[in-house]
């Protein structure tokens, strides 16, 4: 289960919707903590958002947004210094439940497991948000294949419960 407060998610959407000088889209990271659930599985709790800064994008027309090494390094440094999980986030500009493109899946699988090099005991992952929904994958410590996040709860007024989205 993944939980995020609606105001934080709105902050993410507003940032990701900003145009960039050359990148076709923006990306960022949600800083998260975790807890085990009694029934099974875990709950990942989003705490803060860290946008990728303008100068940390690489001009690569083959993808919507390519992070440069500085963006990755800053995110790695944060989890090195804080017990936190990092969830990469980008946006698809449509209503309804989003999904990763093949490029999203390929690129996420390249860099998300790197967070275990500095913070092995936390879940990390990648999310995609649409204008009204969210979807994502979680890399659980010690398991190389990611799992689809089965529940999202957007905490606010109103609450949004997305159960078993697959």
């Amino acid at each position, binding site marked *: *289960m993944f939980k995020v407060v609606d105001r934080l998610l709105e902050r993410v959407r507003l940032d990701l919707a900003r145009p960039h000088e050359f990148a076709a889209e923006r990306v960022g990271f949600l800083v998260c*903590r975790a807890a*085990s*659930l*009694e*029934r099974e599985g875990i709950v990942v709790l989003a705490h803060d958002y860290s946008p990728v800064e303008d100068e940390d994008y690489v001009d690569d027309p083959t993808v919507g947004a390519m992070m440069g090494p500085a963006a990755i390094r800053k995110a790695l440094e944060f989890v090195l210094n804080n017990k936190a999980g990092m969830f990469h986030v980008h946006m698809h500009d449509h209503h309804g439940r989003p999904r990763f493109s093949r490029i999203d899946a390929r690129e996420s699988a390249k860099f998300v497991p790197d967070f275990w090099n500095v913070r092995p005991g936390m879940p990390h992952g990648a999310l995609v948000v649409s204008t009204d929904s969210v979807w994502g994958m979680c890399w659980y410590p010690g398991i190389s294949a990611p799992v689809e996040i*089965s529940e999202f709860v957007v*905490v606010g007024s109103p609450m949004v419960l997305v159960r078993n989205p697959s």
Partner: protein
Amino acid sequence: MSERYARQSFLGSRSEEIFKSCRVTVIGLGGGGSHIVQQLAHIGIGNFLIFDADHVEDSNLNRLVGATHEDVASKTAKTAVATRLINGVNPNTSIVAVPKKWQESADLLRGSDVIFGCVDSFSERQQIEVAARRYLIPYIDIGMDVHPLEHQFAISGQVILSLPGELCMTCMGFLREDLLAREAANYGAAGSRPQVIWPNGVLASLAVGIFVQLMTPWHKNHRRVWYLEYDGNSQTVTTSNRLAHLSGVVCNHFSSLEDVGDPFWVPTKVVAG
């Protein structure tokens, strides 16, 4: 939508599905909590986690909804009364009943969508709010009191929504250091406090109304902060004046990364999404 919920269809075409999937915790199943579980069962909540360490006593029958004379004789747990009440309305409901203090099984709270607190003390309210904020769970608190007032009595009460990211009960001035300290100093000396059924019913209904507005709002004026004050003598409910002085205030009581999640979490072998 099924026939049972046709009269609440204005809550939205997905309301039945939302309520059925919703996981609600009720802490305290006395005068207030018993009303709440009854109403939630009628609404169609599908998953309950209920806590109360007490069993039914004769002095509870003036206000404990669902309790019977036989429950006093058999010392039925209040969780069993609530379970019977819920199952009587909807036998397909999932109920985890914990006849202990919630603090002994606090880990169970983590999967809740909303927590209702129907407890007596400020310190316990504070503990519940801390746990709720840690796991990003909206907390709805209710309470009533009867005060002596120059050879008369005044009935009062409150309903508060503590929504993660918004003002907490300390910000609202409901939880204060002086009140907590006084309560701690008087620990064990309070004796039995006056409690009656009709204010509990009013406060429980207001709390359930706030919950339904959170889950399936039927209008667009979504309030994020609720602090309702009940005057049982004039039979009125008003928004607390304290909120008027808090416009634009941002809660910073739970703003640290350390305030979120399980600080001692380590991965287990089994995982599901």
